[in-house]
């Protein structure tokens, strides 16, 4: 919840679940894990390994995550997003939250 800690944590671990990313942050999908039904659906929707994605927002009341995967906009629940293992781009322009830590 503390912004500083969050960004340090993200920088510390090279890979993390997509649910751990913050708004505006961009990343590259490394692999998908979880129930086959969910993995298949994610792939069908355009979320494959090596897809570039960006978190655009979070719905209120613990609702889903709004993200862009390639050229499509998706909503994914946090529990499902946890299975999307990503490599965040620390230096990306989008991850404005991270830059000030330097």
């Amino acid at each position, binding site marked *: 919840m503390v912004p500083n800690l969050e960004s340090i944590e993200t920088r510390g671990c090279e890979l993390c679940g997509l649910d751990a990313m913050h708004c505006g942050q961009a990343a590259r999908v490394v692999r998908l894990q979880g129930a086959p039904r969910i993995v298949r659906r994610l792939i069908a*929707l355009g979320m494959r390994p090596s897809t570039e994605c960006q978190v*655009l927002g979070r719905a*209120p*009341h613990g609702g889903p995550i709004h993200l862009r995967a*390639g050229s499509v906009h998706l909503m994914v629940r946090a529990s*499902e997003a946890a299975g999307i293992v990503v490599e965040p781009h620390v230096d990306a322009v989008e991850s404005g939250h991270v830059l000030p830590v330097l």
Partner: protein
Amino acid sequence: MSCQFCSLKGSCGLATNEATPQAAVPPRWYMVGTPNTGKTSLINAIAGSTLEIGNWSGTTLEVAHAQAHLACGRVELIDLPGAYTLAGSAPDEEALLPALNADREAMVVNVVDATNLTRDLTLTLELAELEIPMVVALNLVDQAEKQGIRVDTEDLSARLGVPVVTVKANLGHGVGDLVTAASRAGRGAARVAYPAAIEASIGRLLPHAASRWHAIAALTGEFEGAVEGALETTSGATRGAQAAVGQQAHAHGGSNAAVALPVMAGASAGATGSLAARAAGERANLLAAGIDAFLDVVEARHRLAHALSGGATRPLDASDHPGDRVDQLLLHPVVGPFALLGGLALTFHLTFALSSPWVDFLGVVQGVLAGWADALPLPDLLSSFLSGAVIEGVGTVVAFVPVLFTLYALLGFLENAGLLARVAYLADGLMRRLGLPGRAVLPMVLSLGCTVPAVQATKMLEQPRDRLRVALALPSIPCGARLPVFVLLTAAFVPQYAGLTLTALYVGGFLASILTAVLFRGVFRGESATGMMELPAYRLPPFRLVFRLAWIRTKAFLTSAGGPILLVVTLVWALLAFELPSGVSLFEAVARSLAPLFAPIGLEDWRVVGALIPGMIAKEVMIGSMALTFAMGTDTASSLGFLAGLQDVAIGLWDAVRGTLTGLWGSVLATDVPDGALAGRLAGTLPLASALSLMAFSLLYVPCMATLAAIRKAFGARYAVLSAVYQLGLAYLAGLVLFQLFR
């Protein structure tokens, strides 16, 4: 190339002859594409006036279809559900493959969204592996160009090996080209190059498979995935509508579509079994060698699709789309929920503003007609039958039309504009805590207006189980027709706490609805919905299509619910019209004999029990019934002269037009306060406990015949019966508890 198709047909000589290409055009065209690509718009553009909606054979899935007389002959167009893959990663997608499998005279019109070229071409490549004649219709090219994406259709066509035609589905541009191209439909030349080990496996499976696609799907284990998510709610009840869709699905008549999935027409079930077994072996061998067949296949298809699209995908950091800025506002964690509430309130307001003046107008017409019928020189019984059964019955049915049409049109508008998905996004968190999927918020809100279109709207839920349980939960939410009943009852029995009681009724209705949905989650088996969903781009909805579909749905309601409503209205008329030898009306006799049943919930007065019977036709009828039995006399139109009647109709029409225009701005929810005289007469006839019990019972028991008809149409007769029994039981229980508490 096209010989395999026509040799099955037995008309080979003509089809291979390029001089008469017309003969080669397959008679059934299946629209296949990802959701929101404009498939239905395209069908509408090709064959507008014949557009119909029917249930997919043996399932509760809705598909649009149409007949078209084209230069090349008569063609049936079928709109298959939007799908991202052929293997079916969501329940609705599972109808896709069986349909294409079972039909040897099929042609696929693959509608491709030019703004999402790479992803959509992945589906195109899958379709090419299915080896069915295909044409690609490239839609939304102008929007893609605005985003800096240019598609070379000739190059794409050459590389895919099938005709590629540019269309503007919503405007009907390019339809002629599409029809011409249909005669050149090809099976596709683009072949995905899979890694050598996988190609070897495919080669070994191919002799046992119906097509290259089937061999690959078996190898990646996608068949099992599709069968796993088998539909639960299919029943023979929807078979009536299946004839309308065509004969494409004979192979799997009323049975579960998903189970019939791997069975290609002509291929025996045994052969399929051996394919699955062989594929499992191949998959295990690949896995042992460190190869995940599924991922490699997906990757290879994507790579080719990407190459075909010329890398024409939008760069990630292009955040200058107007839609993105709208999303920043609409989906904002703080602003969003308010926008959502405001939007829902506006939808609701518009429904009433646009429909209630016309409901009133129809009421005036009905009254005038009834007056004329009374004035006819006919025997009493006959004229009473005319006004009390025929005109009243038809009037009750027709009164639904303005509300239904408006709600269907608004719903179509929201869906096509890309707003429904945003509603689901915003509501998902809260709804999930209540044990419901986010998308259920819309049917539940629509239900405040009218339960009938709300039942229809459950189709937008992903999982069949959720559709059914939400549909069964909807009748408890107080619809617009129940409001005047509540206003009357609260004014009569709890005048000092009218507002509080009214609020309690609405809250109680919603609570009962949520409890019902949660209860039935445990009763019906099936998967729960995932939260994954595409948020489609904002688009201007195709208005003509939206209105046409709204009218088709309203018409479908008239034909399916009209009969039952007329029947029940006639029955109630007969009860009122005939007398026992003792001089007591049949109605009174029946109500009196039912009264002991209602004694435990405090309703002993036969007049109140009597009002509940016609209340099952439509709730507002309760008021008229009580007015009648509480000796108010009938308020039906005094027999007007012919001219006076016409004048009334003209004034009614003027009022309706004016009301529609003013209602857009003004408040429309100011329900006409029911005549105070009736409230006064009712006051004191029931003790408080009985009155509360009556209100709870009116809130929860069967809302109307039309709702039952809608449930029957969407899910089958047994669920309509279940709903009726459940609502009666729930109402009785609530009445009992309230009566015993307040006694």
